[in-house]
Every structure is written in C-alpha cells, then in structure tokens.
C-alpha cells in the first residue's frame, strides 16, 4: 500500500514528467509568441484594412483606418494597385523562371567542375579548390554591387571587355550596352508572358558566378564519398570514362545534389539582397521578384495594408514551393534507400 505522502510524491513526479517537455519549450515559445506569432496574426488583420502612412501613429486605433475586406487581395490579383508597372502574374512568372533558370545552370556546371577537379593526377587541385570557393564566401551585397559596377554602360568592365574583343574582330566602335537600363527584351520569344530585359541576363551572369561554386562544393564532398573500387571494378569490366560518369557518378551524386538543388531553388527564389542591390527590380519592375516588391510596398510606397496582404500571398506561394520541393526530396530519399 502506498502512503498518502508517497501517492502525492508519485503524482508530483508524474506531473513533472508530463510538463517537463513544455517547460523546455517555454523560452522559445514565449519569445516567438511576441515577435513571430502575434505579428503573423496582426499581419492578417491589417491585410483587411487600408493601413497607410497616416495611420502609423495610432495603429489599429487610428480613426482613419477602414476595414476594406478582401479589397487588397483583389487589387493585387487584378493589378489594380496604385503602383506603376505592377502585374502580379508577371512578377510571379518571372520569380519562378528566375529561380528555375538559375538552378538549371548552377547544378550541372557545379557537378561538371567538381568532376573536372576530381580528375586523378590533376596538378594544383588544392589551389583550384581554394580559389573556386571564393564566390561563396563573399556577401551577396558586395557581389551585387561589384557586378553592377562591371555592367556599367561607360566604365563597366563588361563593355570594355566586349570592346576589346570587337577590336580584335576589326571594329573600332566602343561597345555601349545599357545592361541595366535597357528595357527591350533581347530574346523576344523567351517567356513572352514576362519579357526578360538585358538586366536579367546580366543578373544571370553575375548569379552564375555566385551560384556554381556552392554546387561544386557539395558535389565535391559527394564525389569523395563514392568508393574508388566502384570505378576500378567498372574499368576492369571495360566501361569507358563516359559510361562510368553516367552509370556511377551521376546516380550516386543525386542524393547530395537534389537537396542542394532544392536549397538553391529556395535561395534564388527569395534572393532579396542580390536583386535589390543589383537592379532594385528595375528597369520598370521587369526584374522584380516577390520579396523585392513586398519590400518596396513597405519601404517606399508605405502601403502597409497592401503589403500585409501581399506577404500573406507570398506565404502561400512559399508553402506551395515547400510542399512541392519536399515531395521531391522525400521521393528521392526513398529511392536511394530502396
């Protein structure tokens, strides 16, 4: 028989075991309640209002604040915002295209260069590996400003470089491409819904420089974990180098490269600092992505209600992207485990 005191002690132990996990969660959840969950709810509330600069002093108690229902959402989808050059669908298309076209270039380039660097007997491997990692370690802010400078119409290295090449070909006219200002799309049939200006290609070049080294880094790690005897066995069986690449290297790299691609995709999709510093979304919002437009709504246009509605929409886009990419990673995980 348990005494009354024992029973009490027992109940206390049980209670503690029951509450302990919540005690451990408490610090994080208290902080998040104030600075994450409450703001998220607040965001939804103001997304149904016409919150503007004049309401800033009084917040939700502001006498000028009107409940507008779904007006902000409808305005965004029907491009009825008082904002120049805004087309929701065009920005959305461009944003997806931007992320996909980046990853589609970075991953193959990264893998090929990693394989190249992994060639047995290549001289100066370590030096190359050390040099190739440099773009990854430089802040995007700096990368974007440096490349913006390179693409300058008059002083930029790119036009000077092209001029030098044209001189070799016999032309004396200096090349004066307006990389960041020109609006006319050089390739008209590409993405007709959202014409890609010259600035897009400039950004692709700069972001390519920034993006492939990370993929090489991941691929090199994965390559080094592939057992050497697989290749030896294959070459004894008479497999050529190309066959070895497609039948051993590529399948075994998949496990590492798919999560890396997913990471690269999300990163490019929300690449705020780079886009903001490079073109600021210009010219005429043609290189704007969702996050830079959301920023513009708050910082320059001060349309807080619209910005909140826009952020809610961005959230659902992000959720969609996550569900799709998560499915891809899960599917490949089970494939590799099988």
């Amino acid at each position, binding site marked *: 028989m348990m005494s009354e005191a024992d029973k009490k002690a027992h109940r206390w132990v049980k209670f503690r075991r029951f509450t302990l*996990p*919540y005690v*451990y969660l408490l610090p*994080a*959840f208290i*902080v*998040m309640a104030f*600075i*994450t969950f409450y*703001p*998220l709810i*607040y*965001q939804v509330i*103001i997304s149904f209002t016409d919150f503007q600069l004049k309401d800033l002093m009084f*917040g939700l108690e502001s006498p000028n604040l009107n409940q507008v229902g779904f007006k902000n959402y409808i305005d965004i989808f029907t491009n009825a915002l008082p904002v120049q050059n805004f087309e929701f669908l065009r920005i959305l298309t461009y944003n997806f295209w931007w992320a996909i076209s980046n990853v589609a270039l970075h991953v193959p380039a990264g893998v090929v260069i990693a394989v*190249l660097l992994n*060639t*047995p007997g*290549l*001289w*100066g491997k370590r030096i*190359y590996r050390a*040099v*190739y*990692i*440099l*773009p990854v*370690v*430089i*802040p995007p*802010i*700096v990368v974007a*400003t*440096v*490349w913006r*400078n390179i693409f300058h119409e008059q*002083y930029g*290295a790119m036009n*000077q470089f092209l001029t030098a090449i044209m001189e070799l070909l016999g032309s004396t006219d200096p090349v004066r491409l307006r990389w960041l200002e020109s609006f006319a799309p050089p390739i008209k049939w590409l993405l007709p819904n959202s014409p890609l200006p010259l600035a897009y290609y400039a950004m692709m070049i700069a972001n390519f420089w920034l993006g492939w080294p*990370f993929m090489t880094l991941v691929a090199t*790690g994965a390559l080094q974990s592939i057992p050497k005897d697989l290749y*030896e066995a294959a*070459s*004894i069986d008479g497999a050529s180098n190309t066959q070895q690449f497609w039948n051993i290297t590529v399948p075994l790299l998949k496990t590492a490269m798919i*999560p*890396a691609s*997913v*990471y690269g995709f*999300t990163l490019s999709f*929300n690449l705020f600092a780079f886009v*903001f510093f490079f073109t600021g979304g210009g010219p005429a919002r043609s290189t704007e992505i*969702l*996050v830079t437009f*959301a*920023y513009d709504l708050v910082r320059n246009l001060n349309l807080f209600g619209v910005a909140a509605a826009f*952020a809610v929409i*961005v*959230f659902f886009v*992000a959720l969609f992207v996550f569900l799709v990419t998560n499915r891809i*990673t899960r599917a490949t995980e089970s494939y590799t485990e099988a």
Partner: protein
Amino acid sequence: MTIQNAAPKKKNFIIRFLNINTSKETSGRDLPLWRQLLLQVLTLFIGATVMFPIMYIITMSLSSQTTRPSSLQLFPKEISFVAYQQVLDHPTANPVSFIELLRNSVVLSTVVGLIAVFVAVSAAYAFSRFKFSMRQTLMVMVFIPLLMPAIGLATPLYLLLNSVRLADCGDGVMALAPFATCAVGAGKMVFNLRDSLYGVGISMVAGALPFAVWNLKGYIDTIPEALEEAAAIDGADANQIFFRIMLPLAVPQLAVTFFIGFIGHWQEFAMSWLFLTKPKDYTLAMTLYNMTGQYANSIPWNRFAAMAVIVALPVAIIFIALQKQIVGGLTTGGVKG
C-alpha cells in the same frame, strides 16, 4: 593498379618532376600530358573568371583615385591604402565614425546570434528527445515562420515596434506608448523602438530563432541516446541530463549555428534599412549601400571598394574556417527541417 597503368608511361623528366611536387592524391594514376594540359587550360580559365571580379574590386580599393579606371585594369598599378585610411577615418558624409558602424554591426550580429542559439537549444532538445501530445502541432508552428521570407514579417514588425514609443511630455513626465500617451499635440518623442538597434535586433531574432531550433534539433537527433540512458540509470534527472550531458555535447553545433547566423546577420540589410533612420545606428552593410545610393556619379569608387573588402572579410574568414559544417548544415538541415 588499373588497366590504364599498363600503358607505357611517357617518363618525361618534367612530368616526373611535377608529379613529385603534386599532392598525395595524384599517386593513383597518371594523366597523359595532353589531357593534363587541356584540363589545366580549362581550370585556369575557370579560375580566371572567378578571380576577375575579386581582382577588379581589390585593384580599385588599392587605387588613390576616386574615379573608375577608364580602361580594363586588373592588376593594381599602384598600391595605396589611402582609400582604406579614408574609410576608417571618415566612412560616410554623416558624422559617424567607422568604430561606431563596426560596433553596431558586431554587437547586433553577435547578440542576435547568441539570443537565438540560447533560446533555441532547450526547445530543440525537447523536440528531439521527448514524446508529448501536441509535439507535431508545435513543431509545425516553429516551422511556419521559416517558410516565410524574412521580408514577409517586415510589415507587422514595423508597425508593432513602431507603436512602442517613449515620449517626453514636459514637466519631467514620460509616457510610454502604447500604455500611455501625452496629451494630444504635446510631447516630444525621445525613443522609438522601431527606429533603434533594439527593434532591428528583435526582428532579426524573429528570423533567426526558428532556424536555430531546426538546425539544433537536427544535430541533437544524431547524438546517440546511450549516454543519456546511462546517466538516467545512475539516477540523473532530466534537467541534469540536459545541463550536464546534452549541453556540453552540443557546444560545437551551438557554435556552428551561431556562426551561420552571424554570417547572415552581418549582411542583414533589409530590416535595418527599413527600420533605421539615424546615421549613428547604421551598420556596415547599410553604409555600403549608402555609398552607392542616389548620387551614382559621385561615388568615391576606391573608398566604396575598400568598404566592400572590409564588409566581406569577416564573412569570408568564418566561411572558409567552417566550410564543411556550414555546407552540411545548410543542405541536410535545411531540407529535413
């Protein structure tokens, strides 16, 4: 070793000489010279494209001229530290010293990183080790903010932080909004949480905390439970296990999580540029943007380049030192979490 080795090697003196000099990795197979040279041309070309923008900015930073070179110039013609000296002496047109900017950046990044890691670790432990009702729901709740791009939370944080203001109503009476306000039309604002480094710090923690929870949970999941079980058999209770066993084991990962956060916070620009208006609160990243701002034709290019090098340096050093951990943490942790 392999069939290829059976082929007669061209034992040129130069090749043998170079072979001796290369690293251990080369001992397996020899490359035919023509392939080696072909690959060298390729790798050197790639190396040149990588180095090009870096050399461009370094050359510019070592110039004493504030104008951009009018012809392509990759190697410094002169080595002058005038630009660095000027940036350190007088970084912007505003009366703010380099030390203040540096302090703002360092304190902001460090404090935000530390708070995020220390608040997150116990939650990460709970998610990793305890079974309790609502576990799934609570995990999703921590996860949801991670989906949101940092800018997504900017609007409500701006408005909420902006509502915390301290006003001087005169006669020694202070009023802290939103709890109390001065009489209508009276009062002078002395402090606005939004327009301060505290406010920016708070909004940065909001982004950093969920990431820290997930990154640390992923790591704790990989620590075998045997040690904890042994301690439990010896009579240690849950708290002792956490503080005496788990925390010491997690220290390396706490450091890695902190540094990953630090890199991000050091470059943080969006929130600070949105929230802060006073030049004395500016961070280094903001200063860099400020230098290229609206007056694009009067940018002192050598000083801008010197500032870019200064901003890039800490991030580059941390990244190179922690390469493996950072890449591993981002790809596996980022996807599983």
